[in-house]
Structures are given as C-alpha cells and as structure tokens.
C-alpha cells in the first residue's frame, strides 16, 4: 500500500519533470545559475538603486523630473539622434567590413595568422591610447596627411569631428566583429558549400545563399556587440570628436551629470533612456534574428 502510493508520488513527480523537460526546463538550466547569480548580486542592486535615484531628482519636483528635463531640453534630446547616427552606421560598417575579410580567412594561406593578429591588434589599445595615436597620425601634419600630400591628394580633416569618432569606433569594433566572424565561418561545414558548388552556385551565390544565412546568428551577435560598444562611445567622442556638437552623444550628458555635477539621479535617468533606446534597436535586431535560421551549420552524416 505504502509502496504503491510512494510509487504513485514518484511517478507523478517524474511526469511533472518530463512535462517541464518538454518545455525546456531541466537540469541544464542549472548552468545559468552562476552567471545569473553574479549579475543579480553584483549588478541588479546597483542598477535598481540607480533606477530609484533617477526617480528622486535633486532639485525636487515630480518623480519623473529627471526624465522630463531630458526630453524637454532639445540639446539633450538631440543626443539620441547624435548617438544613433554615430553608433548604427559604425556598427553596420564595422560588421560589413569585417564580414568579407573573415570570409577570406577560412582558407589556409601563409600569413593568415599574421593577418588575424594584425586585425585583432587594436583590441589591445585602450581607448585613450587609440585617441592618442589617432591625434598623432591623423593630425594636420601627421603621417596620414603627409602621405596624402606626398601622393598628391588633398589633405583631409580626420580629427575633432564626426569622422574622427567614426574612425575610432571602427578601429575598436572591427577587430572584435572580425574575430567573432572568423570563428563563425570556421564552423560552417565545407561540404555544404561543396554541395552548392556542384549545384551550380558560383562563389557569389555560395556566399549569399549558403554562407550568409548560416552566418546570421554570428552576424547578429557581432552587430549587437558593435552597437553596444558604439553606444557607449565616450572617450573617442570627447577626445577626437566634437563633443558639444557633431558627436554630442548620450554618454556625454550622462558623464557630465555624474562626473561634474555628481547628480547620480540625473545620470541614471539618462542611462535609462540610453538603455531603452538601445533595447529598441536591439529588439528590432532580435526580432529579425528570430525569424532566421539559427541551428547547426552542418547536416547529414559524419
């Protein structure tokens, strides 16, 4: 009798577990715990604290005063636009730039590791270093302009404007996208491409019809990270951009609030706005991604 009920309970528990497993809830999810714990403990509290103080304006007034002041001031409001017009093209261009190159890294050729190393090199520059180096070589009589002179091209103005920040952003996001995509390309089964070739697909068609769709998840991740990186653009916007004007990105009033006025509430409010804008952008991306293929890049036997 007792064993019967025990067995019944046991089997109920099991079927319950099976039902959960079917929905994806099983022991594998335990792997999430350390990461979620780290973030929950170390990030959530500070972040929620920031959220709370963003609703407690220093000057008093309504709880949303910090947000109201942001959106009612065109100079601040426009930072959204300045950020987007810097971050989005930079992210897209860096991924678009890294993609064909990463594609070419699939073939083994002499010097491949060198090229990979060179491309990843800027990851080792900090943003300050990057800015310092850029002010050196892009200066009106720096190497770049001297070279342009030497080959008879007109000098360019690469510093303290949109272009400068854009270049700096590229220098920091391209290597990363490149590294990510090189790895993703390597995971694509070559036989699939071979199959496409025998079916009459030339290099371009193979690329667009086979490789590209298989690369989409990696591309999206690269784009996401590039956007995140570009949104946080601060040192390069200030150091080689035009921080009050063409590169007046959201992080600038944020830093000013936090670092000059020590108005952490206001800074948090701007951070929240920035996060929301970013989430909208990423939401669109993820929305697109969820419609595309994300699965193994090989099929069949072996």
């Amino acid at each position, binding site marked *: 009798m007792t064993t019967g009920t025990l067995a019944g309970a046991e089997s109920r528990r099991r079927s319950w577990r099976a039902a959960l497993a079917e929905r994806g809830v099983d022991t594998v999810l335990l792997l999430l715990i350390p990461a979620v714990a780290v973030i929950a403990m170390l990030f959530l509290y500070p972040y929620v604290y920031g959220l709370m103080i963003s609703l407690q304006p220093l000057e008093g007034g309504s709880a949303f005063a910090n947000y109201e002041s942001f959106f009612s001031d065109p100079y601040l409001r426009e930072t959204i636009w300045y950020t987007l017009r810097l971050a989005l093209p930079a992210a897209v261009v860096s991924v678009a730039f890294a993609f064909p190159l990463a594609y070419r890294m699939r073939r083994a050729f002499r010097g491949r590791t060198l090229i990979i190393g060179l491309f990843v090199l800027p990851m080792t520059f900090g943003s300050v270093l990057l800015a310092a180096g850029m002010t050196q070589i892009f200066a009106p009589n720096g190497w770049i302009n001297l070279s342009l002179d030497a080959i008879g091209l007109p000098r360019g103005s690469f510093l303290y404007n949109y272009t400068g920040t854009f270049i700096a952003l590229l220098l920091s996001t391209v290597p990363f996208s490149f590294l990510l995509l090189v790895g993703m390309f390597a995971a694509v089964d070559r036989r699939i491409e071979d199959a496409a*070739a025998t*079916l*009459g697909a030339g290099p371009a*068609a193979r690329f667009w019809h*086979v490789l590209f769709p298989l690369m989409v998840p990696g591309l999206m991740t690269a784009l996401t990270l590039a956007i995140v990186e570009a949104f946080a653009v601060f040192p390069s916007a200030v150091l080689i951009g035009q921080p009050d004007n063409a590169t007046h990105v959201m992080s600038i009033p944020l830093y000013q609030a936090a670092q000059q006025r020590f108005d952490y509430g206001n800074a948090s409010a701007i951070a929240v706005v920035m996060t929301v804008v970013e989430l909208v952008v990423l939401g669109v991306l993820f929305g697109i991604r969820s419609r595309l293929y994300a699965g193994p890049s090989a*099929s*069949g036997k072996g």
Partner: protein
Amino acid sequence: MRVAESNLTATTHSFRELRLRGVSRSFGKAIALKELDLTLYAGEFVALLGPSGCGKSTALNCLAGLLPLTGGEIWKDEQRIDTLPPERRGFGMVFQSYALFPHLTIQRNVEFGLRMRGVRLVQRRSRAAEALRTVKLADHAHKRPAELSGGQQQRVAIARALAIEPDIILMDEPLSNLDASLRVELRTEIKRLHQSLGLSTLYVTHDQEEALSLADRVVILRDGRVEQSGPPATVYSRPASPYVAAFMGYRNLFTARATAAAGPGDTVSVHRDGYVFQATAVAGVQAGAEVTLAIRPDEVTVGEGGANQITLATEVVEFMGREIQVQGRMRDGQVLLLRTGSDVVPGDSVPVRLPRERLLAFGQVDG
C-alpha cells in the same frame, strides 16, 4: 538490363566521353588515388565498386572539382576540365554525407540548383515537387533537414541532384540508408531517369546487387586504381583477380597447387587436402604453381555425385531467408561457406560438390 521495347530514344548528349587520365590525389603522405584511368561514355551507367577507403568518394570529388588533383587530367571530349571550378562543370552529385543545406527547407534544398540556373519560380516549384515525389517525400517539403530521418535526408540528397537534370550525375552510395523495398523502387526510378534523360551516371555503391542490376559497366577499384572494368556479367562470373572475386561474393578463397599448366579459360587440375579438383583457370597457370581457388557460397551444392566432391564438417548454420548459410571445415581445417535450401544442422558431416565451371583458379597471387 535488357528491355522489351527499348524506351531508349536516341537522346542527344552534350558530350561523347569523360576521361580521367592518370588522376592522382594524395592527402599528405596518404595516397587515395593512384594514376586512375577511367572513361565514362555519354549515356553510360558506370558503377564504381571497391572496399571502404579505396578512393571511390575521392574519385567523385575530383571529378566534381571539389578536390584539386595532385596529378593527372580530366577531359570532357576535347576540353580539359580539371581546372574548371565545380559550379562550371555542371555535374549533379549525391554526397555520401548528404551535405544538405541545414538552413533551407527540403523544398528549397531541392530547388537550389534550379535557382542557381535561373529557372523561374513556377517551373522550379513544379520540378522540385516532381523530384520530391520521385523520392516519396512530397509530404515533407516544408521541413528542415534536421527534422528528417536519415533515410529521408538521403532521399532529399537524391532529389536535389536529380532536380537539375544534369548531363552527368555522380552518386555516392545514394541508397545506403534505405530499406530494401524503397531501395529497389528508387533504383528503378534512377534507372528510368537515367534512360529517359540520357544521363551519364557514375554510381558508387557497395551493394553488389545494385551495381549488377543498374550498371552498364562495373569498375572495381583497389587502392585508388582500377582493378577490373567490364560488363556486370563478366565481372561477376569472370573476376580478374582473387581481389575482385572476394568483392563479388566469392567468399570461399583458398590455395591449392596446380598439377599441370593451363591457359586462360582452360580446365586445370589442382590438389589440396588430398583431394584433386578440376577448376577453371582465369589466367594462365603453371604446373606446380600455387593457385587461389574461388567459389561463391551459393555455387557450392550439397549432395553426392559428380566430380570435385568433398566432405565438410559443418560448424555454424545461419538463417538467411530462403536459404541457410552453412560454415563447414575441410579435413585440413580450411573453412568453406555454402548456401543451401536443405536442412543442415551444426555438427553434421555433409558431402558437397564444387562445380568445375564455377570454381575459379587464379595463378600468381598478387597483393
């Protein structure tokens, strides 16, 4: 295959012959193809046979342009094609590993080649649908490869290659994962398409029956070289070497000594284990030379009477469907396999006969 009213209308072929000339391919130090010479005539159905790892897939891959040659040339009539990229060779190919596009539905997998050829949507749809019907997968058109069973995936690979109706189609064990009845059906279908479309087909298989029933010519590979090439009946009944014989199901291979010299096709006397056998010499045999005798289990007949009679001590009896397979030993311990419909039990002593015309004697054992 002989057909009552030939439906082989004189299809016009875009080429006359495809020639591999001394094609070699090595992987590092390992040599997969060793100066392979092989010709595929337009409209011909050639079966490529050989043991696992002998270079069959390598040969197809070289032909399709997926592996660069380390030596030799490939010619299509007067055009040298081994330098063309795969997409410009226009061969259809069924990969041993299927190599389906994991991100495309079955429908689109099959349509892929047509799309590359710029075939219009409507026509593409209908040809893909037809190819899928041929392999009995019309119901699965909307699935992705990962949602199919192994055999279903294999059939998609076939449909994909057939849909483009290429001049030359290369198939690498296309039916290996299918059950017997489906295999027979598709075999027939492939043969039909081969004939109606005038395809030239190079077909790798390890299924001897498939090779024999489909092919106009059978090519046996050995370590990256052609060991024998000829019509199925010839290869089957007159293997050129013990190697081919072993491959053609001559599972009883044992040595004996010739008592006299004999020319090819002649009857030769050999002795072993106290018995004297009359065998058919495949090539010239010298007196006193060691020869290899070969006979298929199903050619060994049970019962007394006639020449080449020996007695076997049976050991293992296996059920094989219509017949049983019996493993027995000669007096000197040599194992012999035979198939029979009669009832034999392990431990029996059974008299068997090795028909002279089916007992082949190979002189000069190589390899």
